[in-house]
């Protein structure tokens, strides 16, 4: 309820007094007098029921907004101009029923902690897109993509390396039989990776409950990362082991 100036309240009370024929002085006390304490939480409070049945809306209005204090009398402002379709006592509203909150309203138990995609998510995505574009652009301004001599079937470069993301496989081929290094190990790794959700039955998301899964995956990822790093930087002429700080990266590492 908004604050209503004193003189307007007084004027509305006088206007209502003229309309109802009751003394204006009684209006100010009505809100305080009608504090309902018969609300048992199940049935409609008796005071409200009675108020809705008797003419003169003022007690009903006060009953509906007991916390309104003096401003509750603002309900009388509407009667400053007696309306055409007014009831016998000049009241324009009648309280039909009072419905307890929760009885027919569908209040969701947990609305959840959600935020709008615009702007919260879109702004972050847009920033990320700008950032990655800027990074790629600046990187490309300074570092050129390699273009060696024209392809020549008769001249095998030494060493010959696969693209870096396959160097783990190439590295495995130096250690094991092709059937194991090229087929069994990557095949099993890939199938296990794809079927991880069906193998890992542990429903918990908490890291402390998933020590085994996290350990296995970390070892798995590190396995490939270490192989790729060795294949990229530690394999020189003839794919023999070398240290990059001895031979330099020239000729042994390409992107």
């Amino acid at each position: 309820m908004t604050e209503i100036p004193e003189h307007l309240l007084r004027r509305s009370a006088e206007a209502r007094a003229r309309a109802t024929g009751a003394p204006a002085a009684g209006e100010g006390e009505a809100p305080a007098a009608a504090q309902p304490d018969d609300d048992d939480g199940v049935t409609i409070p008796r005071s409200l029921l009675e108020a809705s049945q008797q003419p003169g809306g003022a007690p009903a209005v006060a009953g509906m907004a007991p916390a309104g204090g003096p401003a509750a009398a603002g309900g009388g402002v509407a009667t400053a101009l007696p309306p055409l379709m007014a009831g016998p006592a000049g009241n324009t509203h009648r309280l039909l029923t009072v419905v307890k909150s929760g009885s027919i309203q569908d209040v969701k138990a947990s609305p959840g902690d959600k935020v709008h995609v615009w702007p919260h998510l879109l702004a972050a995505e847009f920033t990320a897109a700008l950032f990655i574009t800027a990074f790629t652009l600046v990187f490309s301004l300074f570092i050129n993509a390699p273009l060696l001599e024209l392809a020549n079937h008769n001249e095998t470069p030494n060493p010959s390396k696969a693209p870096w993301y396959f160097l783990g496989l190439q590295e495995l081929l130096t250690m094991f039989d092709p059937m194991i290094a090229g087929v069994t190990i990557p095949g099993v790794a890939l199938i296990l990776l794809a079927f991880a959700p069906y193998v890992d039955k542990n429903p918990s998301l908490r890291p402390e409950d998933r020590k085994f899964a996290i350990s296995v995956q970390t070892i798995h990822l590190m396995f490939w990362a270490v192989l790729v790093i060795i294949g990229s930087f530690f394999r020189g002429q003839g794919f023999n082991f070398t240290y990059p700080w001895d031979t330099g990266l020239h000729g042994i590492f390409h992107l």
Partner: protein
Amino acid sequence: MANTLESPDTKPKLPQRLQNAQQQAADWMQDSQFWTSIFRPGSIFRKGYTDSPRNRSYVIMNSVLYHLHPVKVKRHAVKVSYTLCLGGLSFFLFILLTITGIFLMFFYRPTDTAAWADIESLHTQVAFGLLVRNMHRWAAHLMVITVFLHMARVFYHGAYKAPREFNWVVGVMLLQLTLLLAFTGYLLPWDQLALWAVTVGTNMMGFTPVFGEQVRFVLLGGQQIGAETLLRWYVLHVLMLPFVIVIFMAIHFWRVRKDGGISGPL
């Protein structure tokens, strides 16, 4: 001093008048049928857009973004420290690669006699040719890294667990498709690096039992890498694999929403 005071009938100064004219033009544009037909109600480009919860919802609901994003997401889902934006970055790098790749296609012929020279002249004859090729190359390497890191992130959050099992499988497919796209693109410059990297890579493929040799033969268009290989890998790289990966991405993004948004918090 008195004559410097503004009198009410003084005309506005030029910058003010320019600003007014600009405002009038903008109002006229935003009121036009043309403008309102493009930007549906709730668009931030509509006249009188105000920041309210209702309009925030409309921004998504009344735009094509509704195909990708819901109106609201869980609060933790927008935390960059949770996702590191890796999935989104992978997708954005794919778009960047598509744009730069289309540019490169204008200047490239996938034949063993023309390919290398086309790249060479792209470097020297075409405006921004070298820059765009650099961006395509580095974005490709970057995408392999972001897709890999995205996979790791999802694993460590346990996000592959029910109900997201199948989306994880789709994601592993996407990882492989990304590697295949990168690998097929590797051959196209037709230089020594491309030829021998792909030779090593496809030799490994030949070890696959039962059908390894056959697959290798079909992919190379012969026993060893040649002009047919270049054409096949070009078509794979610019058409077939992008087509397949877009379908898988559509399913992947759709399932993210259908499975209840991203997982977590931990």
